[in-house]
């Protein structure tokens, strides 16, 4: 399978990565090189094989349902590139 330029733009949008027009052709070429590389997987007989969900068989552990590690709002917003008081700020989302 290979991707066309429209698909490259669609994937970039799904991944929320802005792509310049001049970058589309080489991205298409690189993605197709990777897709060609993984193509041989199509020839493997996987009939009746369970997909792996956990590489080491282990039971999911449960923890007590209680509040822990209360870092506090100051700490949580400390690394934000833009903030007001204890809020992250973003461009207007709702009109």
């Amino acid at each position: 399978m290979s991707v066309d330029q429209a698909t490259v733009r669609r994937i970039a949008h799904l991944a929320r990565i802005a792509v310049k027009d001049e970058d589309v052709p080489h991205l298409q070429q690189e993605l197709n090189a990777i897709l060609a590389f993984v193509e041989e997987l199509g020839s493997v007989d996987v009939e009746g094989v369970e997909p792996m969900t956990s590489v080491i068989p282990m039971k999911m552990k449960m923890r007590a349902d209680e509040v822990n590690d209360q870092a506090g709002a100051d700490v949580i917003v400390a690394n934000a590139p833009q903030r007001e008081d204890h809020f992250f700020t973003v461009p207007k989302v709702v009109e």
Partner: protein
Amino acid sequence: MTSLNELTLAQARDALAAKKASAVELAQAHLDAMEKARGLGAYVAETPEIALDMARRSDQRIASGEAGALEGLPIGVKDLYATKGVHTQACSHILDGFKPAYESTVSANLWRDGAVMLGKLNMDEFAMGSSNETSFYGPVASPWLPPGWSADKARAALATKEKAGLLVPGGSSGGSASAVAAHLCLGATASDTGGSIRQPAAFTGTAGVKPTYGRCSRWGMVAFASSLDQAGPIARNVRDCAILLRSMAGHDPKDTTSVDAPVPDYEKAVGASIKGRKIGIPKEYRVSGMPEEIDALWRKGVDWLRDAGAEIVEISLPHTKYALPAYYIVAPAEASSNLARYDGVRYGLRAPGRDIRELYENTRAQGFGPEVRRRIMIGAYVLSAGYYDAYYVRAQKIRTLIRRDFEAAFHDGVDAILTPATPSPAFAIGEKTSADPVEMYLNDVFTVTVNMAGLPGFAVPAGLSKDGLPLGLQLIGRPFDEETLFSVAQAVEEAAGPVSLPKPWWA
């Protein structure tokens, strides 16, 4: 007299215990060496004040008889580990200025046992790469001179931004491997998703172990592919790796995939007899186009283990050739999900946009480098509607088959598997930058199966190429049987003889 930074970790530990040196002297010797080696680019952040402060406290604990297992031993930390209040960016532009308010479990375990932090080590951006060339902070040079190069020529190349022609230290833990090989730390934390501990160790004549998935906590490690990522050490020999892994490993309630099982004293396994141990030699690892010197090294490894009393058996791991392509579906898929968190809102870089969508798209376009963007896009594609079953589910089924291959070998009594670590010695910076990203991916052809099956793997220095560059052998073990790996790796190390690491031409 040997400078203090040229001691092995075990020797330094013993020197401190015998009061032949102080932790402050040991830390200072490393800080001095780091300053002279800045051209290599191994460290992206040096933390001399923290190092000396920790060392002073170590000296006090040594004096009062409260020394921990790593008391006063200076360690470098891969930039992927969250270190409280200290540069933590996984060498990405998108995490600009990020200083975590918390400490990763693995690094916290090292400090609990008395280790001293020297700084943060360079790496491929988000651990995506095999040469350390994708780092936002520029490439790392290996301390090994390119074949035929004079020290003067190498110093001139080191002074340039590109460092073209010097050797790569491998990746993604290239800063860790380079720093260990250049004596800029006694040992380093590293991490391994497809070979990122073992390939750089093999390229630099150092030892590196990726333990079983779940052996170390992943809490506080910047996530790449969560079902494959695992922490481990790079150090100058097998024993030093054993000492470090014992401190790094252990159960952590904050990582549900970390295993609640006691951590053995791995150092006791170093030097244990391997008489009667069954070592499997997988015929599928004899890949086409493999250089004769790699094959010869592998045969030598077989002879060494046989001479040490091991029983050698040929085994078959029939799905080996599918591991690398399946990895390039599973790992990007998990990466596209994990890296969705970098949105320009909560931390790191923010590029303005007219609306929230543009803010996300501009931030991620500017913040991620080309290799990371590529992998996120492949991941988004293989997870998208209509392709999920054909790519992602199929790759996870193949992963089951890869794991079954290993289980069958272990069921037949194989204790460990011996393979080459890499298909070639180190290449030059700038050598593999063609339009085909797959060329770089092939570096991990021998290591990636181990991550896909969650097994422990060890890269141990085993000799030199015809051009005088280090080559490594890989040992693969049963789940949670790192001890056998340490014993077998030690047998390889002893048979191969000591590596003579490069003298500091860069200083």
